[in-house]
């Protein structure tokens, strides 16, 4: 196959070729970067929570009358929730895992704000908290019922002992045994690590590493609201939650229920931004690819139909059908190659800009390689059908006048 006639044919409609190449270049840049971002977002959504969140729910309540008593309300609410059929475990908690509700702080490995430090989520709970969370101890022990500090009017009460997640333990004591170590909070109050659990995600406030959680043996509620966390038998969380919400409301009228939500709901909220971004990116990328394909298809079809006479001449002077097909495919391949070449530069440029402006990780070059392959393939596929149609032009056309 001689490339010269192909090139000269191309040069006759330079603008058309340049436009298609440009389209391919933009499509490549969008495809590769969008796929890269979508990959990251899916990884974020799939990040393990370490919780059976499908089978958990939370109820948030707050007292509002003068005769409201937090300890007795919590006690009766817990007794009721634990007595419900289908409930595996229930506990009062100071923050709700996967939600934005709760508190955080900083822990230090040494006294006087020295040594390693880590931002963490506080999760006040009782001795059944571990079981409600479904957390697994990998070292040390659980809280004993006698160790749970009763609720007091103190707004910020120190606890002598805590249980921490592996991630928090590692952040404070890298490469060392954290169990039995004493850590200090921002007010330099000492706390002994009595247990270490497998990682799970705590409350997800801005800037707090999600796996850094410390369980504290106390009842929380100074800020008015109090939270109950419940784990149910598989598949029953929603139904039990509805019933609990109705029942709790009438059992104690000195407090109101703010909300009852499954942890599925919080997980959905947490993922919504990533999910929406992924959906939108996939949709627009698919549309760009489709439009590019249709554009190549339309233009090749058009080129074929305007060059009917030349094709007839080619055939008349001895070109085989195969030669006509390869003529048009080669013509298209040159355009696609040009587009992909420009596209690679554009892709890397966009990737660089995304990492600079939005702090995204640098583009993975495998994505670029895959994108080039995909665009080259669909570019040729789009031109294939019109090229075949060109080959079916009979040589006799050349002898007629159009």
């Amino acid at each position, binding site marked *: 196959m001689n490339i010269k006639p192909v090139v000269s044919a191309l040069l006759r409609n330079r603008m058309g070729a340049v436009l298609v190449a440009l389209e391919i270049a933009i499509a490549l840049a969008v495809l590769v970067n969008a796929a890269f971002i979508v990959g990251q977002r899916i990884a974020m959504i799939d990040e393990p929570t370490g919780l059976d969140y499908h089978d958990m729910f939370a109820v948030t309540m707050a007292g509002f009358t003068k005769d409201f008593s937090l300890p007795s309300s919590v006690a009766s609410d817990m007794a009721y929730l634990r007595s419900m059929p289908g409930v595996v475990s229930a506990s009062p908690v100071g923050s709700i895992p996967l939600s934005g509700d709760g508190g955080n702080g900083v822990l230090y490995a040494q006294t006087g704000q020295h040594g390693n430090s880590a931002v963490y989520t506080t999760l006040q709970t009782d001795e059944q908290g571990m079981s409600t969370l479904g957390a697994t101890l990998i070292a040390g022990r659980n809280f004993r019922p006698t160790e749970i500090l009763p609720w007091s009017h103190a707004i910020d009460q120190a606890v002598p002992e805590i249980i921490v997640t592996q991630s928090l333990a590692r952040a404070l004591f890298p490469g060392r045994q954290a169990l039995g170590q004493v850590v200090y909070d921002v007010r330099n109050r000492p706390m002994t690590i009595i247990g270490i659990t497998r990682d799970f995600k705590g409350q997800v406030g801005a800037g707090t590493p999600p796996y850094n959680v410390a369980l504290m043996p106390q009842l929380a509620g100074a800020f008015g609201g109090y939270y109950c966390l419940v784990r149910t038998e598989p598949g029953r969380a929603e139904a039990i939650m509805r019933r609990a919400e109705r029942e709790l409301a009438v059992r104690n009228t000195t407090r109101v229920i703010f909300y009852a939500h499954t942890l599925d709901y919080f997980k959905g909220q947490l993922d919504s931004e990533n999910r929406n971004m992924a959906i939108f990116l996939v949709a627009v990328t698919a549309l760009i690819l489709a439009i590019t394909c*249709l554009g190549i298809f339309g233009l090749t079809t058009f080129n074929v139909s305007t060059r009917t006479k030349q094709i007839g001449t080619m055939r008349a002077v001895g070109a085989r059908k195969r030669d006509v097909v390869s003529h048009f495919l080669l013509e298209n391949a040159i355009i696609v190659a040009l587009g992909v070449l420009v596209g690679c530069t554009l892709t890397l440029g966009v990737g660089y800009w995304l990492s600079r402006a939005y702090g995204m990780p640098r583009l993975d070059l495998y994505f670029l390689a895959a994108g080039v392959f995909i665009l080259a393939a669909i570019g040729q596929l789009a031109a294939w059908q019109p090229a075949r149609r060109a080959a079916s032009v009979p040589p006799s056309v050349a002898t007629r006048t159009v």
Partner: protein
Amino acid sequence: MLGYYLWLAAKSFRRNPGLTALMVGAIALGISTCIVTLTVYHAMSGNPIWWKNNILYAVTMDGWDPSPSDPYDPAHPQLAPPQLTYRDAQYLYQSTIPRRKVLITQLLGVLSGAPGETAPVHVMTHAVTRDFFSMFDVPFEYGGGWSASADSGPEPVIVLSKEQNDKLFGGADSVGQTILWNDHRFRIVGVLKNWRPLPRFYDMTTRRWGEPDDAYVPFQWGPALQILPGGNSSCWGDPVTTYQDYLGSECVWIEMWAELPTAQARERMQAYMDSYWAVQRKAGRFARPLNNHLTDVSDWLKVNGVVSSDSRILLRLAFAFLIVCLINTVGILLAKFLRAAPTTGLRRALGASRRQIFLQHLAEVATLSFVGAALGLALGAAGLVGVHAMYTYGGAYGVLARFDPIGILWALALAAVSTLAAGLYPAWAIGRLPPSLYLKSR
């Protein structure tokens, strides 16, 4: 002449219905995608009180923990906390420099004792000082705000949202009636019209896109009833045991805004804050570097990261898509016009001027653009419904429902400009072809 051009255009469309559909479809898709992302972006970056943007200032002082291991916001350690401590807020509020000023905090609130009550209901309550309503142009259906004496008392007065008034009083004028707020009897002094600034710029620490306020009470009711804030509260420093400790602590939990209409007033307010800072620093507070700020609304939205980087990226993506769609259309139009070059050559030979050829093709392009843009607007509206459903889950409900007039104008302008720009080149190029070449070639 125009009628004739349009007739020619229709004929040309009928000759290649597939290509015509492809072009119209591409324009429509490109425009609808841009409309959707532009609307989302516009809604998220909209300034809910733009008409007072350079008058209203968020007041912040940096008295946070000087320890580098305990920044207020680990992602932006250089920023001052967005809220003030009770001490600092009380001091700054005494200043007579601002024309108006307001202290704001969120309190847990439960309403009961109204005729329409079915059960006590948790309501989003903001405890504010009296200027809140006039500063932020809050519209009243009945009654109004409260007096300065109600602030200092504090008097048991409450302002309800339209939604709560509809629920509890059937939408009637409830001013003068009483209701229980946290089991204390409050007199209703005002009922708002629908008012829902998005984002909730005056308190962005929690649920800035979330449910609107249901009730407002005088700021001092928090301390009077010893209610800790229901919104964000961040502490460092000495342990806090009692409510009195809390008021004297370094805990930040109060938003402050000042209305400063002139540059001179702003300078004076800044000097007032800085001199207070200096005095307090000598007494051992404010260990971090001087970082007192008066921030106008649009900067405040920026500092608080209101527009997500996702929506910025999507906006650019949508424009890239529109460009691809337009390039596509230009390419096809060019090819199509070139194919009809012999006919065009004949027209030129018979005396049609370049201008007439240009106008003829422009008519074709304009028809295509018009249909594509109309279809794009319809698709965009449908897409917004879909996006609305997507975002409802994220707690940002209602934000994106607005297909506002300015948005429509933008979309129309976008459609007209982009498609005409795309069509201009082919129409111009075809008019420049030498007629003789095409007359003899076939």
